[in-house]
Each structure stands twice: as C-alpha cells, then as structure tokens.
C-alpha cells in the first residue's frame, strides 16, 4: 500500500502541465504506480474539461466566436490535412529496464518513455549511486540508489526536496518509505535516510517554484473545497 501521495494541488498542476519539469516527472511516475492518484487525475481532467467546455465559458466564446469564414477555412484545412505519420516506433522492450550493479529495475511508464534522458551511474561515498535525468532545465532530477545497510549523512534541504521510491525501502527519523511513496521534505526538516536489509532505488528532485502564474489549473477555483483543503 502506498502511504504517501502528492498533494491534491500537485495533482491538479500535474494534470494541467504546470509543475516544473522535474516535478512533472516525479508526480507522473507516482501516478503510474498509484491507482488512487490515477483515478484522481482522471477526475481532475474531467473537471477541467467541464470548466473549459462548459456553460461557464458561454459569454466568452460568444464574444470570441470564430466567424463562419474562419470556421469554414479551418474545417477545410483539417479535412485536407494528411494523417500524421505513424508515431515513432513503439518503445523497445529494454526501455523500461534500468540496470545497476547487476540488478535490474522495471521503470514505471513515465520514466520508461523518457529513458533516453537517463545518464550514466556515478558512485558516491558510501553505498550510494547517482544517475541524473536530463530534463532540459536548470533543475536537477536524479536517481539515487542506496545499497543495503547504507546511510545518507544527516542533512537539511535548501528548499523542498521530493523523493519517490521506485523500488525497495528506505527509512528516516519519520518512518519507512516503500515502492510508490512520494515524500516532500521542507527546508526545516533534518533527516538522515538509511536502508537496512533491503536496497532502495529512488528518484529525487528539488521542488522549484511554479513556472506559470496563469494556466489551465486556474480553471479550478483554487479555493474549491474539493481540491484545496
């Protein structure tokens, strides 16, 4: 059972595409692993669609309504367009596998689709390994692998750090985190993650400020009791 989930606000921003690239990958991967959050994202998408296409926009779309000439021209262009070339070949079977130290991990779908972004492993002091995920931003997203009986020295975070367990279990002063658990640690948090008899593969990102101040997520009233309690 997954115990730790992204907040509802993070799911809304994920569904709108308005999280930072690193957090989109983190939340997307959690959603792959979590039936509960999958259902919630679907629900959020339904709600956004209803707002976007619903009656609330009536006045707006009346005012902006496509005039019939533009309308007809666009329709004609669409009918004349050729079907886009088939998608690039489906992902190769090995795309969803990640190897380290003779171990093989199955990657959740979001990571598998982005597996070409995963860099080489480098060894850190202790039984720790790191591989960066190139998401084209200044922000960093990393796989962190902790071998059995390993400890990350106690540290605090500048800003918020999000960690998602892909496989295995790690613990800190607050508890144990297992497959699919999504943990946000704020700057005030002192913690020392460690593993015992099991190793742990995690994905970690710094939670950067949001990129957009207006956007799809605004379709949902931020004060609605449904999403932001």
């Amino acid at each position, binding site marked *: 059972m997954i115990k730790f989930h992204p907040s509802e606000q993070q799911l809304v921003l994920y569904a709108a595409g308005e999280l930072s*690239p690193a957090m*989109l990958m983190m939340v997307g991967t959690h959603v792959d692993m979590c039936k509960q959050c999958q259902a919630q994202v679907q629900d959020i998408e339904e709600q956004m669609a209803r707002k976007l296409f619903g009656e609330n926009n009536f006045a707006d779309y009346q005012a902006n309504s496509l005039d019939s000439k533009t309308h007809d021209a666009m329709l004609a262009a669409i009918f004349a367009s050729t079907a886009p070339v088939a998608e690039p070949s489906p992902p190769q079977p090995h795309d969803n596998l990640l190897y380290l130290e003779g171990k093989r991990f*199955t990657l959740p779908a979001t990571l598998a689709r982005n597996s070409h972004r995963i860099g080489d492993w480098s060894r850190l002091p202790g039984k720790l390994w790191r591989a960066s995920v190139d998401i084209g931003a200044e922000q960093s997203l990393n796989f962190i692998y902790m071998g059995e009986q390993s400890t990350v020295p106690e540290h605090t975070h500048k800003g918020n750090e999000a960690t998602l367990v892909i496989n295995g279990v790690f613990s800190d002063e607050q508890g144990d985190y297992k497959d699919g658990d999504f943990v946000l640690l704020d700057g005030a948090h002192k913690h020392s993650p460690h593993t015992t008899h099991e190793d742990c593969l995690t994905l970690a990102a710094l939670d950067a400020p949001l990129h957009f101040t207006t956007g799809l997520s605004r379709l949902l009233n931020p004060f609605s009791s449904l999403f932001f309690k």
Partner: protein
Amino acid sequence: MPPAQPDNPEHAAELLAQIATEQSRAAFSELFKHFAPRLQAYATRQFGNEQTAMDLVQETMTNVWHKAHLFKPDRGSAATWIFTIARNIRFDFLRKNKYRQNDLSADDLWPVLAEQNESLDDDYALDDDLLMQQLAVYCEQLPPAQKTVIELIYIEGKSQQEVADALDIPLGTVKSRTRLALQKLKELIQHD
C-alpha cells in the same frame, strides 16, 4: 425532445465513433462547431495572441479528426479526451517558445495519442508479451504430443486432469509429457 448536442457526453462519444469508423465529416463538423470556439476563447485568453490561439485550435482539432480511433469511451468523456489533447499541445507550444533543447515533450508525459499506450502502463505486460513470444518459438521445437499438452496447460489454462480428459489419455501421461516438455524447454533456453 430536442436533438442531442455535443455537450451531451454520449452524443459526443458517438460522433467520435462515427469519425473513427466512417471518417464522417458531418460528425466532425458538429464536434468542431461545439468545441473549437470554446477552445479558441480559452486559448486566446491564455496566450494573449490570436494567432497562437488559432494554431492551438487547429492542431487540436486536426488530431481529433485523424486520431478519433484512439478515443476510449471507458476511460473518460469525449470532452476530457479533447481537453487532454489541447493540454498536450499547449504544453509543447509553451516550451517551443523558449528554444531550449532536451525539454520534456507532452507525449512522453501524457501519452494521450500514442498508438500503443497500454503495454507500458502495465508494468510487466511488455515483459510477459516478450516472454510469450520467445516461448512460442521454443515450443515449436517440442515433439507434437508435448507441445499440445503445454499449450493446453499454459496457454488455455487447463488443469492436468482437464487435459487428460480432453485428449483421452491417462493423467500420468499428461504429467510425464509436461515434465519432459518443461525439461526440454529449459535445455533449449539455456542452450540459446
């Protein structure tokens, strides 16, 4: 009763089905009339630019026209499907404007329009498929009697007793054929 409108979810889904199966221009025009102006109004507010908004509408609706067969009614409403297409296009538009390399692409985050998005969603499905394909090749190399038993048990999911009844042979024979076949398969796989 008034005729059904595209804001009726069932009707919208029906229109998409007509586009997918018959390339019905009438069905598409009806959907377009409902969704395009609403998308445009929203996109204009979003981008503050009439042309970009029109591009978003056109690209979204072009995908609806060509990819209607990818709409899965059991996964959500037609409106939601169209919304997710628009969301993806908007996401890519916003990034393209920044001229940065290696940016995430919407399709890799939300595979709304992927022709095959089931296999990767299901963690192990891909592995299983591959395994079955490989095993099928090995099974071809088994003696016919053993191959039949293996297929009935592992592909059709019959019990050994059911196989014995179906083939009208003793249970002991089924067991020995299964054992020999598995042994042979193991050798074939290790040998490869």
